[in-house]
């Protein structure tokens, strides 16, 4: 599925669409950057409650094309700006990270 289709399925508030046509097949969830940096699979989107600038940096480093900020958390302006510059899609969700994962599992994404 493409990032655009996934964000639409989730009903996320799209803060940046990035490369909306890119296909992603896997996902990772976590808020500890060192953990995500070490274990993110290829071609995955990332679900986190953490809207710090460094989340964008880790996404760039691991070629993560889409970050979903769960739990109704507010992203920092620096984070959004960097994601726009780097072409990283950002979806904002009121749902808890657990529920976001469930919705992604339903449409075939795996860890």
């Amino acid at each position, binding site marked *: 599925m493409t990032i655009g289709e996934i964000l639409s399925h989730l009903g996320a508030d799209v803060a940046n669409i990035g490369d909306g046509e890119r296909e992603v097949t896997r996902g990772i969830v976590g808020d500890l950057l060192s953990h995500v940096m070490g274990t993110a699979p290829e071609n995955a989107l990332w679900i986190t409650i953490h809207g710090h600038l460094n989340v964008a940096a880790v996404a760039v480093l691991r070629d993560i094309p889409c970050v979903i900020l769960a739990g109704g958390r507010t992203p*920092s302006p620096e984070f959004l700006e960097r994601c726009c510059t780097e072409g990283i899609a950002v979806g904002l969700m009121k749902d808890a990270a657990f529920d976001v994962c469930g919705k992604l599992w339903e449409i075939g994404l795996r860890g």
Partner: protein
Amino acid sequence: MESAGTEGRRTLSESETHAPESGHSVNPGASTSAFAGETAPLLRRFRTDLHVHSVLSPCAELEMGAPEIIQRASREEITLLALTDHNAVANVPALMEAAEVERERLRVSGTDDGSIPRILCGVEVQTEEDIHLVALFRSAEDGFAFQEWLWEALPSRANDPDIFGYQLIIDGKNAVLDQVATLLVQGVSRSVEEVIAEIRHRGGLSFLAHVDRPGFSYVEVLGPVPEDLAVDAVELSRRLSAEEALAWRSRLGARTILRSSDAHRLEDLRREHCMELLLAEPTFDEVALALRNEAGRRVLWPWEETPP
């Protein structure tokens, strides 16, 4: 360089003999200027622990009472100690009082050898990102004003002593004055950058706590420490070997590196868990100079093996 000896402080005079040659300055460029001028104060080594918990921290043992901390620190020849409970400074007056009582007792009996530690006001803040950051303040008043700012951002969840432990406010003789009802071991709703800026704005010092640990560490949560992060130092935990500490040192660049006990029980309060600072006297302002590596004041490399 004779003053320590003439004051009869055996440990200090021993240390002082070696001070200019041994140990290591994190930023060697500015390390010896104070020795040059005629009026330069005499610098001595002070064994220093800047990260200690008391019975106010729910995770600390109930043996961490005020007189007990003072007596244990004194036995371990720790001459400067910051009390740094989780998100609170409320036991700092108790510790200061206990130190003063003990010092007075020794003075009266004619045995005051300077072994009772001087107390600094500190707090271990847990930020929004669950990062632990230690703040030090010039006075308990400054600390209480900061605590007020902090508590405005502390979630209102109540402490359950059966799960987390007691949060006791005590006096210098361990009489329980109060309990803090709100759970102190929670992240406040302020980012690490906001907390650092607030501490600096209030004239305090800050350092990232135990960055090498898997929990509550800046590095674990946010990755490498950026050069422009406005903390005054970075703490490595006492659990590191000399070799591991050197590896961390090279990762952290030009930062001042500290080692303190993070003691939650008395037996963790040990001389080999903390560090020595080269200071003129054991005060907040001198520590500030040492953390910035100014006027000859500095933090000596805490592990036995001196960096290359």
